[in-house]
Structures are given as structure tokens and as C-alpha cells.
């Protein structure tokens, strides 16, 4: 790799420089979406359905429009017709009709909090008052809240036109059935010494980013529009908003503000099209910011699910057959991550005979959005607790059992093609070598659990440019919104290639007019795919620097090399060439650019191949209060194969953050709906995310099995660490108090119930024994 390592070692990659955008964020100067303000700006608010399932018979807005300060009200009537079929929008596969129906309910409200109308007024308080003046006549319909109810024959139907491949012209709530099959299931179970069959239920949970959704829409008289918002994907905001509002993509510029967390939840649109629509109607900039209640009721959480797992194994711990049935709540519109869940649930293991049936089911809940390794965490809660039971039945250490059955390079994936280089076994070894694993538990009602997670990671499209400044410093421009410090990594890759200090590189995230198409910050893809584009763009700049030096020296470009920020002749010895041509630093060369052909801009755009999948293994110690069912986490360690850690601090940060979210998912987070389908916990008081008193320091073991598909060996790090914790906790709880949990969250009431049940049966048994 020209330039990156003169001696086989990285100079910048693997170090821990201070992030370039850091100071702005610690002094309060960084601008997030809600921090933007413009002259004449109006404030928008959204009226939301108080019913889970209802026909909208009429909407009267005249009273609201009469309120002084109100400038406009919009309803679905203001949206263009949209087709009811899957389409590409940007890189996303979406159903334009469903997207439009989710932005503003058309003829039906499909969940508590479904947007019905939006108001623009001179102050947020006036806009709020106006909402109360909008009169909506509903015909309330029976709510369909769970996959059990939704799949029952005769269940109320959300979408009269919804059909699936198998049921012909029958009305249904089942949007899709996916199946994976391998080997001979019956023979597999026959060959097993024992079979374990369990059923699991996991509750719907939210990403819980601290920054609510926001957008400022500005529609100009000339039809040119700009949207400022906090998003994971500015280019997707552009294409989706264009879709919904009916404005040509080319007329919209999206400026990605700093983003206050997303975790998948900010990969789609809610307020962006509305702010644009309201601006189009009023001729003013319109700012919209969700309340926390709106975030929970009206944005996209991830699926609750019902999962049945049946596994057969031999006494010596070989898993020989597995049968899985899984149904995920998609929310009000098709598109749960059940397909991903199906491909993940058995992914860590080589199982010759398997069948997985997965169902995508619509229910009267908000349309689910992506959440960190979408679908994989529910699946692991089921699969990894059953694997733990198999280890127990065989009397084998749960890590040893995973090693015995674990996938390696060349093992067939559930979906067919064999794995390339992967680091699953390496994560298990890293845990076995950790201080934590070697430590002892210290008291009663304590237990230690382990679990593993798999995630694909993603490639997709990215663009980058590297500009050489006249003083020899550089800027690197990408289209990937920076949620977790990725700008620092992009600057580090650039600095590594050019051989200049990372402080001499200024990284920035550009708007949709200033950089080539770049897909979402998601799928753990930024350091992998955008990093690949940055690497190639920097190489392109390096090549041009060598060419310029060659011009100055009147030699051929291939006679010049670039090392550690200095161009020099490969063979200075040869006198007639070497004379008067001492090595030149990039700083020096930069002053000569104007006279050697003008500025240097390195460019690259990729549709990245060579995605390297990720594995994580989590070890957790808990102590359970047997009288209240409350779980305290004593210690936690996560090992993850990241391929190559560019900035280890932010890699650890991703591992720790994912682990914390997985712990919240496992212990206390859930959507509470009442029997009418109304969400009861619409705030962060009762949607219980972990506070810093609920977590220990989270120990990390970075595993680096280089991804052969990436010039720097990067896999990506953003997602997989969220997958193992719920199962690891369930396994730890079992060892602490002897009960197997089959539901998330494993909240105190649920856990105590199981503990008391066990106590009762134990007593009757010991009584019978006497």
C-alpha cells in the first residue's frame, strides 16, 4: 500500500487522536437539527391519532386556520397519489403508498400516534393550540396488537389490499413468509440424543436516541428546496421526501446537521416531508421538532416477536438439527427485519439439518425502523438460550460447546454461500482469555452467562474527495453523517495514505449537492465503505502528487515515490537524475501546484464489495434479588471481531454502547400498550433505558481478523455488540436463580413470577420426597 506503511506498520491508524469535531461539541457550538433558525421561520406541529385502529371519516381544519398566528394546515389530501408497490428510492426498497400513508394517515389511522395533520404557526405554542382545534371524526376499529392476534383466522385486517404469495387473493395481515431449508430435518432429529423445544416472546423496543427527530424545510419561490435535519442518510431524506411531497429529487438539497444518535431510527423520514410541504404552502421556512412522546408513539421502534426454537443435539454436544418458527411485528406497514432475524438466528453454528420459517406481520403499532443489527437481537435471545441449555444438558462449558459447533472460514452460511475469513472462534477465545472469565463469582444468587451474536454488516455506495491545500494540509469530504466519531477515522485514513499528521487533515460531511451519492450511515458501513472511498480518494491524490513531483523533476511518475509525507526519487543514486532533486515534503510541493497543472483533488466513489460479517461474544455476571426479581449487573465483557480498528477508542465506544442498549433491551425496556392499543409509557420515565447507575464499566476485547475484502482489513463495528446481551443475561440469571427466562424484558415482575413458581414446585417436590 503505497504511502500507508513504509515499514509495514501503520503510523496513524490504530492511534487515538482527538476527534476533529470534538471541541465544537464540548463547548456547545455544534449545530444539531433543532439548533437551526432562519428569519421568518414558522414552527410546525403534528396532530396524532388517539386510536390504534380507526377509519378517518372527516377532518375539519377551518377552526384551526382561524387561530391568529396559524399559517397553514396540511392533511393527506395535500399529498400526491403514490403507487402501492415496492420501488427503489435511493438505495432503499420502499412502498411509496405505505411511506405516504405513514407520513400522514390517508383513510385510516393505523396506530396510536399516527400522524393525521400538521400545522404551521408563528410559535410552537400557537401551533400546539391549533392542533386542539382540528376536528377529526373517527370510526374506531378493533386494535390488532400482537402477531398471535394478527395471524388468527378472522382477525381484523389492517390493509384490505394486502396479499401474500401463499394465500392467493385472501385478505391477510401476514405480509411475507421467508423460508430457509437445509439437509433432512426429520433424519436430523432422529440422530439427536435429545431435543429441546422452547417458545420466546420479545417486546417492541425503541432505539432511544436522546435527540428527537427534527427538520427545517425551506421551499423557495423558484421551486428550489432545502431541508436541514438530523439524519443518518441525507441522500435518502432527499429521495424519500421528493417521493412523498412530489418534488423532483434534483430540486431538493438536504443539509445533514450534527445528529444526536440514530441507531437505525433516523434512516427514514417523518417530519422532513411535512416541513417541506408546510413551507411550500406558506412560503416560510418551517421548523418541526418531535416531543419525546411523539418519538415513542410516532417514530419507528424495532419489532416485538414470537419465536419458537427446536434443537436436537448428541450427548457429546454436536447440534444436529434445528427448526425455527419466527413472527415479527412489522408495525402498521410491511417490512419487519424478520428476514435478517431468520438469517442470523443459526448463523454462528454449522448445523447440517435445519428449517427456518419467518413471517412479517402487520399490527397496529408504529411502523418499525432499523435498530442496530435489525432482527438479530430478538433471534439471539431465542437461539442462544437454547444453545446454553444444550451445553448444560451435555455438561459442556457453554463456550466450549460454541467452539465445537462454531462456524469458521469455509463453513456454509444459513443462506448458502460459505463464509470467507471470519472471527467467531477468535471472539470466544478472547473471552476465555479475559480477566473476567478467569475471575470468580463472590456471593449467593450470582450467575455468569455468555452469548454470541452475528451480523452481516453492509457495503453499499459511498463517495469521497480529498483536497490538497496550498500549505500541504488536506481536507476529506464525505456524505456520511457522523454519529460516533467517523470523521476522525476518515481523517486518519487520509493522513495514513498521504503520510501527513492527522491534525493536518480536516474531515467534513457535505450536503447532497456537494458530494456524490452516499448511502445511509448504517449497517456498520461507514468505516468500511466510506473508508474504502476515502482510502481510494487519498491514493488518487497521492498519485497526482507523485505526477507533479515528476513534472518538477522532469522524470517519469513511476520514478517518484511518496513516503511519510515526502516525495522523492526512487533511485536518487543515479547522478544525472538525482542531481538538484532532493526529496520534497508535500508542504513544499503544494506551493508548486498552481504552476504544475493546478489544484489537486483526489476522488473516489464505490459500491463496496467485500463486506466482512461480524461476530461478538458477551460475558456477563449478575446478582439477582430473589425476593424482588431485580437484576444487578456486576461485570460485563464484550469481544468483537472488527477486522481492523482505525480509532480504537471509538471502536470500544461502539462495543460498549451496543452492549448497554442490549442490556436495556434485556432487562427493562418495552412498549406498554393498554387493551385499546394506546401506548402508556410515552416518556423516558417509564421507557426505562439504563442510567449510569445501572451499568458497570464495560470491558472490551477488540478482535482483529482482517477482512480480505477491504484495503485496511475493516469490517465495521457499529451493530453486532447489541445482539448477545439479552441472551447472555438470561443465561446468567439461570445460573443465579435456576429459572430460564423466555421473555424480554426480564423485568422484576416477570422474573419474580418465575422464581416464585420454581420455589413452589421445589417445595412440592421436596415434600413428595419426604
Amino acid at each position, binding site marked *: 500500500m503505497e504511502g500507508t506503511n513504509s515499514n509495514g506498520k501503520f503510523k496513524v491508524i490504530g492511534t487515538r487522536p482527538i476527534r476533529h469535531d470534538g471541541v465544537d461539541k464540548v463547548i456547545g457550538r455544534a449545530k444539531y437539527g433543532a439548533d437551526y433558525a432562519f428569519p421568518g421561520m414558522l414552527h410546525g406541529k403534528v396532530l396524532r391519532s388517539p386510536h390504534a385502529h380507526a377509519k378517518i371519516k372527516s377532518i375539519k381544519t377551518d377552526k384551526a386556520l382561524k387561530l391568529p398566528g396559524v399559517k397553514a394546515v396540511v392533511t393527506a389530501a395535500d399529498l400526491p397519489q403514490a403507487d402501492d408497490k*415496492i*420501488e*427503489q428510492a435511493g438505495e*432503499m*426498497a420502499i412502498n411509496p403508498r405505505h411511506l405516504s400513508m405513514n407520513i400522514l394517515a390517508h383513510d385510516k389511522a393505523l396506530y396510536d400516534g399516527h400522524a393525521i395533520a400538521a400545522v404551521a404557526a408563528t410559535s410552537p405554542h400557537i401551533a400546539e393550540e391549533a392542533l386542539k382545534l382540528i376536528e377529526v371524526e373517527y370510526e374506531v376499529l378493533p386494535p390488532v396488537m400482537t402477531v398471535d392476534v394478527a395471524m388468527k383466522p378472522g382477525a381484523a385486517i389492517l390493509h384490505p389490499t394486502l396479499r401474500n*404469495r401463499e394465500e392467493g387473493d385472501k385478505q391477510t395481515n401476514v405480509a411475507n*413468509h*421467508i*423460508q*430457509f*431449508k437445509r439437509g433432512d430435518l426429520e433424519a436430523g432429529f432422529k440422530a439427536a440424543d435429545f431435543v429441546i423445544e422452547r417458545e420466546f416472546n420479545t417486546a417492541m423496543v425503541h*432505539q432511544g436516541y436522546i435527540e428527537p427527530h427534527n427538520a427545517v424545510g425551506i421551499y423557495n419561490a423558484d421551486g428550489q428546496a432545502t431541508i436541514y435535519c438530523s439524519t*443518518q442518510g441525507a441522500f435518502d431524506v432527499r429521495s424519500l421526501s421528493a417521493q412523498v411531497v412530489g418534488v423532483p429529487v434534483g430540486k431538493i438539497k438536504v443539509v445533514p446537521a450534527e445528529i444526536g444518535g*440514530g*441507531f*437505525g431510527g433516523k*434512516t427514514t423520514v417523518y417530519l422532513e416531508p411535512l416541513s417541506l410541504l408546510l413551507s411550500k404552502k406558506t412560503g416560510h421556512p418551517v421548523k418541526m421538532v418531535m416531543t419525546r412522546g411523539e418519538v415513542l408513539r410516532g417514530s419507528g421502534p424495532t419489532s416485538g416477536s414470537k419465536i419458537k426454537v427446536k434443537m436436537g443435539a448428541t450427548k457429546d454436544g454436536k447440534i444436529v438439527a434445528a427448526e425455527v418458527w419466527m413472527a415479527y411485528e412489522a408495525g402498521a406497514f410491511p417490512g419487519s*427485519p424478520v*428476514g*435478517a432475524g431468520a*438469517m442470523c438466528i443459526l448463523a454462528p453454528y454449522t448445523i447440517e439439518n435445519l428449517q427456518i420459517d419467518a413471517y412479517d406481520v402487520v399490527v397496529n403499532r408504529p411502523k418499525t425502523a*432499523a*435498530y*442496530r*443489527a*435489525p*432482527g438479530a437481537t430478538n433471534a439471539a435471545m431465542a437461539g442462544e438460550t437454547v444453545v446454553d441449555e444444550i451445553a448444560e444438558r451435555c455438561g459442556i462449558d457453554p463456550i466450549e460447546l460454541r467452539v465445537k459447533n462454531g462456524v469458521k472460514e469455509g463453513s456454509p452460511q444459513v*443462506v*448458502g*454461500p*460459505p*463464509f*470467507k475469513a471470519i472471527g467467531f472462534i477468535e471472539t470466544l477465545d478472547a473471552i476465555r482469555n479475559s480477566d473476567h472469565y478467569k475471575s470468580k463469582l463472590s456471593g449467593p444468587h450470582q450467575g455468569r452467562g455468555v452469548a454470541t451474536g452475528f451480523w*452481516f*454488516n*453492509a*457495503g453499499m455506495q459511498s463517495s469521497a474527495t480529498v483536497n490538497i491545500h496550498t500549505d500541504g494540509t488536506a481536507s476529506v469530504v464525505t456524505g456520511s453523517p457522523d*454519529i460516533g466519531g467517523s470523521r476522525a477515522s476518515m481523517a486518519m485514513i487520509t493522513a495514513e495514505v498521504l503520510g501527513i499528521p492527522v491534525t493536518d487533515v480536516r474531515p467534513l460531511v457535505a450536503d447532497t449537492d456537494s458530494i456524490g451519492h452516499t448511502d*445511509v*450511515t*448504517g*449497517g*456498520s*458501513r461507514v468505516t468500511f465503505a466510506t473508508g474504502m472511498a476515502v482510502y481510494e480518494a487519498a491514493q488518487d491524490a497521492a498519485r497526482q502528487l507523485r505526477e507533479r513531483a515528476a513534472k518538477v523533476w522532469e522524470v517519469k511518475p513511476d520514478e517518484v515515490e511518496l513516503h511519510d509525507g515526502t516525495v522523492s526519487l526512487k533511485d536518487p543514486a543515479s547522478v544525472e537524475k538525482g542531481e538538484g532533486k532532493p526529496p520534497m515534503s508535500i508542504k513544499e510541493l503544494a506551493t508548486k501546484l498552481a504552476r504544475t497543472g493546478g489544484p489537486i483533488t483526489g476522488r473516489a466513489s464505490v*459500491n*463496496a*464489495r*467485500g*463486506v466482512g460479517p461480524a461476530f461478538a461474544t458477551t460475558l456477563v455476571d449478575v446478582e439477582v434479588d430473589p425476593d424482588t426479581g431485580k437484576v444487578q449487573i456486576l461485570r460485563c465483557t464484550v469481544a468483537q471481531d472488527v477486522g481492523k480498528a482505525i480509532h480504537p477508542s471509538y471502536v470500544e465506544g461502539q462495543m460498549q454502547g451496543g452492549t448497554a442498549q442490549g442490556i436495556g433491551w434485556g432487562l427493562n425496556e418495552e412498549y406498554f400498550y393498554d387493551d385499546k392499543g394506546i401506548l402508556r409509557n410515552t416518556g423516558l420515565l417509564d421507557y426505562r433505558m439504563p442510567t449510569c447507575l445501572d451499568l458497570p464499566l464495560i470491558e472490551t476485547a477488540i478482535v482483529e481478523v482482517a477482512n480480505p475484502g477491504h484495503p485496511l482489513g475493516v469490517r465495521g463495528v*457499529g*451493530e453486532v455488540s447489541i445482539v448477545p446481551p439479552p441472551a447472555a443475561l438470561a443465561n446468567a440469571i439461570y445460573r443465579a436463580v435456576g429459572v430460564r427466562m423466555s421473555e424480554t424484558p426480564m423485568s422484576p415482575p416477570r422474573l419474580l413470577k418465575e422464581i416464585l413458581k420454581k420455589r413452589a414446585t421445589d417445595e412440592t417436590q421436596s415434600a413428595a420426597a419426604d
Partner: protein
Amino acid sequence: MPVAIIPSLLRKYTGGIERVEVQGHNLRELIANLGRKFPDLTSHLLENGDLKPSIAVSVDGEIATGGILEPVSEKSEVHFLPAIGGGA
């Protein structure tokens, strides 16, 4: 000849066959030839002449980024999978 692996739920359109040897230098040709063998299959893979957005194709273990023009070699294994989205 390249081999196409048919997802279990689509095998009803191939008379239960899982692995199909089928000619083609890219996905367009390969799917066209599959369609000649199994006419009912095509509509589940293609939509207005392009791959269905709900489907991802892996060629030799690599998710195809070239759409229907993705090259296919004599020894290629082609898998049809459900498309998936990422998180954070």
C-alpha cells in the same frame, strides 16, 4: 455451467429442484434462461426487467452490486436471498 440455488419457497415453480445448472454470462442471461426452464419463476425474481427490490443476489458469496448486469462465471454459484437493511 453456473449453478443457481433456488430458495425453498420458490421451488414449487421448479418442480422442487434446488440446484439448477443454467447458462449465462451475467444475471440477466442466467435469469432469462431460468425463465425458459421454469416460466412461473421469473415474476418472483424480476420486476419491470430489473431485480425485485425485495431480493438480493449473491454470486460466489458476494452480494451482487451490479444488478442484472452482475457478471457470472462458468463456475459461479448464484443464491437468491431476501434483501435486508442495516441499523447504525
